[in-house]
């Protein structure tokens, strides 16, 4: 009976702050745990991102290598580059990625986003009951949205970083075989670092872009779904 009275007493001040909470730290913890527990699932979601960023990083670091060689102004290097497939005009002193390359990169990134959307939609469908249950426990739409965005953000940074590093390494190995050790010596490491940073950033943004629609679908789900028996 005592308990009941105290419950009555606090309903009066509850009217002032009828809020539900999810601290940021807690949501980050939940997202990380979710990735950890469903590691294989997250890996599949991240894989297309890793591959696309690998390609992006490979192309841009290869351009950095070629620029390093061009910067020496040695005509023999110019010949080597032309022989290995770079389109260099006599007056060029630096190299940009060609329009053809840019198109292929954009296409691969687009395919990657579609892949992420697809994989994330599947992940959301698999977790319908979990989301519904959380909503029954009082979760707001934005809690769910935040959980999915955080998860995708972490996957995005990790996947893109792995892809970018792997792409850069592969490009350097490629340069070693094609041009020899001096090619790596002539390279501007700042450029390589910037290329990796850029590729990681692009990957992060793509991952968030890909999860946006699935996360909104999840957040708008009605709590009644948790009650459904089938699945």
């Amino acid at each position, binding site marked *: 009976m005592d308990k009941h009275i105290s419950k009555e007493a606090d309903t009066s001040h*509850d009217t002032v702050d*009828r809020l*539900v*909470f999810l601290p940021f730290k807690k949501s980050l913890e939940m997202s990380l745990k979710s990735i950890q527990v*469903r590691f294989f699932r997250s890996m599949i979601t991240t894989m297309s991102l890793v591959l696309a960023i690998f390609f992006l990083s490979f192309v841009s670091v290869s351009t950095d290598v070629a620029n390093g060689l061009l910067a020496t102004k040695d005509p023999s290097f110019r010949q080597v580059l032309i022989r290995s497939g770079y389109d260099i005009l006599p007056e060029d002193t630096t190299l940009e990625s060609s329009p053809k390359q840019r198109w292929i990169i954009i296409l691969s990134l687009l395919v990657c986003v579609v892949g992420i959307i697809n994989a994330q939609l599947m992940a959301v469908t698999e977790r319908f009951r979990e989301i519904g*249950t959380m*909503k029954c*426990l009082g979760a707001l739409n934005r809690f769910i949205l935040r959980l999915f965005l955080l998860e995708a953000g972490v996957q995005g940074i990790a996947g893109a970083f792995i892809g970018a590093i792997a792409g850069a390494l592969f490009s350097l190995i490629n340069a070693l075989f094609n041009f020899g050790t001096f090619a790596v010596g002539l390279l501007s490491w700042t450029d390589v670092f910037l290329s990796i940073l850029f590729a990681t950033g692009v990957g992060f943004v793509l991952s968030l872009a890909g999860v946006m629609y699935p996360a909104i679908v999840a957040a708008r789900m*009605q709590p009644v779904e948790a009650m459904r*028996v089938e699945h």
Partner: protein
Amino acid sequence: MPDSRDIVRVSQVTKIFQLGKVQVQALQGVNLEIAAGNYISIMGPSGSGKSTLFNMIGGLDKPTSGKVFIDDVDIAQLDAYELAWLRCRKIGYIFQTFNIIQVMTALENVTLPMIFAGMNNDSAVEKGIQLLELVGLGDRFRHKPSELSGGQQQRVAVARALANDPAIILADEPTGNLDLTTGEEIITLLKKLSKERNVTVISATHDFKMLNVSDQVVWIRDGRIDKIEDREELSISVGTIGTKQ
């Protein structure tokens, strides 16, 4: 003992579902008052509108017409935030399929609603352990749901439903996926908790074991209330149902 206050009031509620081009009237004018602290069973065949009524009481669905009051608050007037607050603080849910969040331990499942309610982590953990001890799982709070049996998972769900000391516990076929003895244990547990903590338990069911502990049984048929029986009248009809079964 239950006081005379009505915790749930359903007045003239109808619900129409649009299934393609056909309109289905799931509820056709239901009136119901549920007194605080009672143990109520809503009985009815599937398709009777039982789940629809149940969802209305739980604030999970809004009526087409009519009003549902929980603790004298009309739930149709609430916005998304207030509804979430209501689900978090006033109502505890128990499901047929347990719905324990698979990636979290038993304890984390129980503390989640308390975190939503703004409790700090340490006191939530402390209370979570207490609740798990209360339902008889004191030694298993670090277990994942996959390491628990169906009955144990449902116990976790009961503890989770009690997390924020709700006024109402809504149980949707809580024994539907459990064997006979485990089901009975859960029913006894719910009854005990309802008495000790003065919580109103409302369960949708077609498990006749439920009738023995119910203070009131609401029979639904074709979207209407067929009859409401109190405990005293019940003992007679239970006999006949028992033999039919």
